[in-house]
């Protein structure tokens, strides 16, 4: 039973795209991996419109006071088990935005992140590699 669950989750991770105040470059790269050139439907990855349908959340951008409650809410709305994948360098660390009054610190202070994909923005290949690594961790 546990094996079947794991197999299903590994073979069809539906992703929901949470743009938590990023500069939109990572978002554009995420849309790139859905194009025919990279075709992630080969692995069963589909972009869904509702967090209720999602198995993995792709979060982008630096967490700030406005976006934190929204990200937390989306995370709570997602049925478990679900993965959280941080796309872009901003999710790893706030970097140049760190001294800002508005930044609330890195992601893993607030929600459990399974894998970080660095890059500003990461290449589509890097995003696919990151998702594969996250699935291997299961």
């Amino acid at each position, binding site marked *: 039973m546990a094996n079947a669950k794991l197999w299903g989750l590994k073979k*069809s991770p539906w992703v929901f795209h949470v743009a938590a105040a990023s500069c939109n470059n990572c978002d554009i790269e995420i849309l790139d991996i859905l194009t*025919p050139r990279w075709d992630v439907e*080969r692995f069963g990855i589909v972009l869904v419109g509702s967090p209720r349908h999602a198995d993995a959340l792709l979060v982008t951008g630096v967490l700030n006071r406005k976006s934190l409650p929204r990200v937390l809410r989306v995370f709570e709305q997602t049925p478990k088990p679900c993965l959280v994948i941080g796309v872009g360098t901003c999710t790893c660390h706030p970097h140049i935005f760190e001294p800002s009054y508005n930044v609330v610190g890195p992601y893993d202070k607030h929600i459990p992140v399974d894998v970080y994909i660095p890059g500003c923005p990461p290449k589509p290949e890097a995003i696919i590699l990151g998702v594969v690594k996250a699935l291997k961790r299961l």
Partner: protein
Amino acid sequence: MNIARMLFSFVVFPGFIFSAVVGLLITWIDRKVTARIHWRVGPPWFQPYADFLKLLLKETIIPEGSSKTLFLLGPLLGLVAMSIFAVMLFSMNFYPTSTFVGDLIVIIYLLALPPIGIIIGGSASKNPLASVGVSREMTQYFAYELPFLISMAVIILKAGGRIRFGDIILVQQAQGPFLYSLSGVIAAIVFLLSTQAKLSFIPFDIPEAEQEIMAGPYIEYSGVALAMYKLTRAMMFFLLPLFLISLLWGGFANWWAILKFLLIVVLIILIKNTNPRLRIDQALKFFWTGIGILAFIGLVLAFYGL
């Protein structure tokens, strides 16, 4: 003995399990052909089964403040209706004498149940986007049902006023399929476009328009309930082309029917992939004027025996 056989036919073959398994395979054909049209590789053959298994084993969330019974009744209604529809379709094709008076009307009502399930579930889920989707689903149902019923009337007229499903198949086996006449072609076109709308495929995926209202009525569904909706859709995709074959193309109790079936399925997928989505008012206009008038012309032609 008899009850055991009935249970078997409802649950295993050709009812729930058989049509679900084949329906999911048809969903894969849909995704693969779509991928090839996009010049992509597409998912492997077990993809719909993996999706279904994953959804079964995930958490099912019932939104706060929604009616739990109605929320879970919605997906069940369509699934049960499609299982009964599968049993009737197969038994009428393989044993046409097992027909009863008005079974075509029963089937028309059974086909109305999946949209009603979506309407009940979507309005119970207490989400503004779901209620927009539900209102669109209702409008679309009224839009495509009129030409669909007129095309049914064409078929009944061509069968000499016989309203029993089995009789319609027997008449076609004796006199040749209805499709090989002018009014038959018109009825088939109308039927095919209504099928497209019944399946909520582009250009008629208005209720769940992904880019406008996310997933429409399905937006709050997760886990088992969502899996049931997906399964209902897959079973409809398997059964509605078979329904078209048995009403207009001489029944499917022979091996040629597999080719006919694949032809219709690929035609539906091609329509889906080469058209933009209509607005809801455009869809209503399309079905009530354009296609409605075409269906009516078919009815008049059938009356004069063409």
